[in-house]
């Protein structure tokens, strides 16, 4: 490890300029978890510095310490060569550190301007501060070509623009160092590219950017230097130009991983699921899925690509029987099973539909339950789990152990609380519960969200194995890489419509990205070809 611990040098910096950020021996424990184990990090002034690592590697903890959300148990923080004692976000802002969180901290009903001055209004009377702020905002927008109307209501802006408001907020507060935590999770590839252009401009103006992400593609495309974290330790620093995604992923996981999934030809057979003109509305009457028609055959994986929030979640939930359908039909194995008209999740399960919902903690499991209790969720009425009118906990524990063996869930203790498993192991347990029922149709949403790389590989292989066993799989994911590597056919959703279908073999990221942004498939291909 020590050979990889050489400090990163800035692009062209000679060492006379102190680094923008220097962390020395940062140490932080949460109970039994050693989240940060004496971390050293140097971020050179005027560079874009990436920090990569699996979920739970300690990236967010480290940045939270830098931003003052947590206090380190040991270690020091130096900003521009000066020792700083950062006790809260105000201290961080005072030394010029700004943060753009993964989940935006914006008031949706306020205008851009109001959001930007929130907390720094400058006096009891708004008027004066507002006028000054407006001028300052204009200057910032021009300087960094952010392209935002200061009077637009934030709630009406697209996610990409809202993110720019967050950046603007940080700049307005005089940030010289900008930390972005997983900034592209909610963006289309095009929006992400735009973000990286903005970051490049910031860099040219002398700002320093720290980019936290788990997407290696972004690291390679946008950063000058990269630091890799694994299990609470800083394992390597690299110049981005001198490394490769393969090396970085091995450093992240600590062993060799397959980046591309190896899978054979699909061998599709009969249609299992037929969806006709499906419309789904929220309880407040907002139409989320509009006239969706498609089919899924046995022995194929159909992926639904789309930026988060474009109706794919509602579609998946409707097919799982959780939401009722307002129009259209769902036909499973030739029988009408349109959810809502007397057909719910229980009935669909009986008919051979297994569902791995998108949000593990909100829906797929009860974190307060033990693993064995979580392992029967949805199948609690199964005769095999009963003894008379009582639940047979002995049998349930055995069944859970069997699932844990089969899907390599660690620790293999059915009595442990579900909350105490890592994200990957929780997800494996959920997949085991659904897949081991041997369903005809597997609905699976964000199968690897919050899951470490080792488990991702395993989960992907399992989903492909389902396909190869002649099952129909419908996959919803906002990770385009995942959609492209798993699917045999790709449907793209935008604003509730399925705007096109692409054969996975001919899919490319540019075309899919344009389609996700609502561009007609033919036009998208023409534009991508340019």
């Amino acid at each position, binding site marked *: 490890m020590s050979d990889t611990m050489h400090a990163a040098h800035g692009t062209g910096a000679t060492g006379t300029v102190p680094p923008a950020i220097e962390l020395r021996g940062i140490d932080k424990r949460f109970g039994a978890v050693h989240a940060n184990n004496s971390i050293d990090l140097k971020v050179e002034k005027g560079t874009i510095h990436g920090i990569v690592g699996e979920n739970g590697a300690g990236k967010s903890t480290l940045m939270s310490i830098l931003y003052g959300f947590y206090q380190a148990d040991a270690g020091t923080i130096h900003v521009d060569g000066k020792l700083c004692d950062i006790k809260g976000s105000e201290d961080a802002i005072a030394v010029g550190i700004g943060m753009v969180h993964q989940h935006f901290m914006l008031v949706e009903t306020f205008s851009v301007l109001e959001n930007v001055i929130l907390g720094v209004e400058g006096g009891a009377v708004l008027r004066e501060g507002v006028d000054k702020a407006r001028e300052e905002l204009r200057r910032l927008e021009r300087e960094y070509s952010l392209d935002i109307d200061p009077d637009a209501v934030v709630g009406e802006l697209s996610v990409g623009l809202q993110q720019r408001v967050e950046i603007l907020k940080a700049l307005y507060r005089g940030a010289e160092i900008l930390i972005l935590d997983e900034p592209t999770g909610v963006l289309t590839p095009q929006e992400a590219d735009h973000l990286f252009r903005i970051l490049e401009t910031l860099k040219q103006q002398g700002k320093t950017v720290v980019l936290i992400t788990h997407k290696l593609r972004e690291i390679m495309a946008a950063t000058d230097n990269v630091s890799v974290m694994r299990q609470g330790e800083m394992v390597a620093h690299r110049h981005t130009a001198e490394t490769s995604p393969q090396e970085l992923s091995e450093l992240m996981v600590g062993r060799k991983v397959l980046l591309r999934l190896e899978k054979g030809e699909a061998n599709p057979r009969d249609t299992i699921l037929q969806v006709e003109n499906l419309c789904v509305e929220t309880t407040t009457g907002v139409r989320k899925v509009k006239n969706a028609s498609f089919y899924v055959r046995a022995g194929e994986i159909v992926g639904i690509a789309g930026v988060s929030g474009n109706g794919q979640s509602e579609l998946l939930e409707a097919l799982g029987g959780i939401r009722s359908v307002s129009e259209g039909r769902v036909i499973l194995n030739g029988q009408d099973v349109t959810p809502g008209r007397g057909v719910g*999740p229980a009935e669909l399960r009986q008919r051979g539909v297994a569902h791995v919902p998108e949000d593990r903690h909100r829906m797929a499991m009860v974190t307060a339950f033990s693993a064995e209790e979580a392992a029967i969720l949805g199948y609690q009425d199964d005769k095999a789990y009963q003894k008379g009118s009582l639940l047979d906990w002995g049998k349930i524990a055995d069944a859970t152990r069997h699932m844990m063996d089969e899907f390599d869930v660690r620790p293999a203790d059915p009595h442990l609380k579900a909350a105490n498993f890592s994200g990957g192991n929780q997800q494996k347990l959920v997949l085991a519960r659904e897949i081991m029922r041997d369903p005809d149709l597997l609905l699976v949403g964000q199968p690897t969200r919050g899951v470490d790389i080792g488990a991702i590989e395993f989960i992907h292989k399992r989903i492909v194995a389902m396909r190869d066993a002649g099952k129909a799989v419908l996959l919803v994911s906002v990770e385009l890489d995942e959609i492209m590597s798993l699917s045999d056919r790709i449907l793209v959703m935008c604003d509730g419509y399925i705007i096109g279908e692409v054969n996975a073999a001919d899919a490319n990221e540019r075309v899919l990205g344009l389609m996700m942004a609502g561009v007609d498939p033919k036009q998208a291909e023409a534009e991508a070809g340019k």
Partner: protein
Amino acid sequence: MSDTIQLPRWIDVGVLPLMNLMLAFLISGLVVMAIGEDPSEVVRIMLYGAFGYEEAVGYTLYYTTNFIFTGLAFAVAFHAGLFNIGVEGQAYIGGLGVTLAALYLNWLPFPVMLVVSILAAAIFGAAWAYIPAYLQARRGSHVVITTIMFNFIASSLMVYLLVNVLRPQGSMTPESAAIDENLTLPYIHNMAAWFGIDMASSPLNFSFVYAIACCVLVWLFIWHTRWGYAIRTVGANAAAATFAGIEPGRYIILAMMISGGLAGFMALNEVMGVQHRLLIDFTAGYGFVGIAVALMGRNHPFGIFLSALLFGMLYQGGAELSFEIPTITNDMVVVIQGLVILCTGALEHMFRPRVTQMYTAWRLRQRAQEAA
């Protein structure tokens, strides 16, 4: 980033409640000292008053019976994520059911009558809980608000019924006619006498045995049936319940009705066991204290039994105390009870973080030693 070390059960349900209780007694001791009395004397009188002689034990367990029923009632709803503040009113209406059955079906033989009374208590209590439950499940009206209102409605309704309908002609007090003597629940001291055991007489009656049976039944229901599983799922995560094909509304209604039914059982003790008639306000706040009993008992029947016993002791010992030491008035006893509720219920999490931290550190050191 949460703690991966789970507190073992003996700390969770043993050490922590005990620490909270000690804190309550410590503060109570200071209050007692402040009014110039000797805390150790107070403790002695309270313990003697609650457990010192046979009759006292009988009274303590009689109070305990009420707390078991109301505590269980609150706990069942709590497992479905509902705060049933209406236990008081549901118990009150349960009393109406018991009384009507005993007054109008008085030709039934006692064993049949016993079953009918239990059913009447459960059905009336459950029916009273059904309305707020329905409003919560289908209309989204918050059950805390509606059950509080239903306590007032129950109270007014019962005053009306007792004054205008149930009061026997010529009586000046708002209470029902007496229940036939052969239909009342046998006292424990009488039951003991059947077996030739001599016991001091007290209000403790057969309903105490039934309360313990209810503890076992609730335990089986909540943790060992699929309906209990469904209720706990709804309480812990309604979205997950929907995903699992468990319709939350149905189980909200089920949990509330079971809760109301258990609340109604309190009337078995009071109406059929002790008063032998329906008295105005016979619930006397037991329903509200049941909330504290359930919370302190971690909503587990065994914990509820123990905390009900504690509150039974406080009630009986407290009564004795205000009798023995005149400066310690009844209000003072209420203060002590209040402190217990405050420390075990509201401040439940005060010691938890520190204890968790200490336990984690200890476990880590132990693990390190094992590794070495």
